[in-house]
């Protein structure tokens, strides 16, 4: 850490002429960055809240009182955990991104870290969306070949919550893709000179 800190200081002390242009570009990018991260946080929070409140209890004639919960399927548990991690991550990086707006000289290092971690979190959120989507699709349509019955005709509220949550998490992964593009693009913008 110390070794990476050192080179920035001399470079800064050298008082190179460029500083004036980068700050303006940087601030613009990071304002957009913060907006996207807040969106990501909102999306992750909404997805988690919607799926956690999806439990439904219903009285059906042949089976008596039955309830469906998201906890009954490991796929949905994974979904909740992954989206919670993404939400926490978005809080931390929003703060980090805000701190860069106040102290622009850290920006390149932060951009690099953001780009790395955003890619990982994108993998997490995309796989969670795929996981929950795969199971929810079987719940919606059933599968005749292996005798898995559809459940969405009985538990409408549960399935509506699932669908809403999945749509929001899909939106969250799109936001993450945009975030990585933004980081890559602003890293790329720093090269030409």
């Amino acid at each position, binding site marked *: 850490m110390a070794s990476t800190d050192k080179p920035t200081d001399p470079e800064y002390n050298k008082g190179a002429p460029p500083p004036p242009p980068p700050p303006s570009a940087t601030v613009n990018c990071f304002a957009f960055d913060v907006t996207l991260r807040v969106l990501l946080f909102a999306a992750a929070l909404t997805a988690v809240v919607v799926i956690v409140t999806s439990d439904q209890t219903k009285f059906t004639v042949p089976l008596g009182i039955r309830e469906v919960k998201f906890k009954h399927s490991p796929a949905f548990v994974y979904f909740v955990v992954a989206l919670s991690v993404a939400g926490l991550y978005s809080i931390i990086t929003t703060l980090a991104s805000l701190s860069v707006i106040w102290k622009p000289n850290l920006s390149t290092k932060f*951009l690099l870290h953001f*780009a790395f971690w955003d890619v990982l979190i994108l993998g997490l959120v995309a796989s969670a969306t795929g996981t929950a989507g795969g*199971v929810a699709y079987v719940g919606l349509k059933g599968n005749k070949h292996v005798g*898995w019955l559809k459940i969405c005709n009985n538990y409408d509220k549960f399935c509506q919550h699932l669908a809403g949550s999945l749509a929001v998490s899909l939106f969250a992964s799109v936001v993450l893709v945009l975030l990585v593009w933004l980081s*890559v693009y602003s890293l790329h913008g720093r090269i030409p000179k």
Partner: protein
Amino acid sequence: MDGVRSDVKVVESPRRVRVFDAFLRLFALAFTLVAAVVVGVSKETEIVPITITPSLPTLHLQFTAKWQYMSAFVYFLVSNAIACSYAAASLVYSLAVSSSFNQDAVVLVLSILDLVIMALLFSANGAAAAIGIIGRDGNSHVQWRKVCDMFGAFCHHFTAALVLSLIGSSAFLLLVAFAVLGLHKKPK
């Protein structure tokens, strides 16, 4: 002096990066291709004896497990095929363009596309793994019974394909990570 140093950097370090990049693309190509093929050829037919009552003769029913029967597996196969063809196209593209002028723009475009393909592969892996786990363990809450006790070979095939596809998607992840690092390491 300054010009000489920057020339050396432009010629030397991207070359090594390019070789590594091409190697990773080849790696991703191979793994997603094998994953898609392994799923595509997996088909198992089992004859299951069913006894309804001891007095009646045992029925022998034939059951078949195919990847087409489950939408998550279809999604998995299609995603792997897309990733595989993209890896081939991007490999050719990056090798063909590599000697010409605008290296940075190529890196930018390719890393953006790599990212999208990576997200696609990860979601396909998630979907297939979730269905595979239901197939292995079943889900007693909604009366979905397990099927892997009947179709053992099919499930083993599928597990292998899943592992291969995971390795392939990690290769895409590394590609994006190294592209970002490469952009960062360029002389500023």
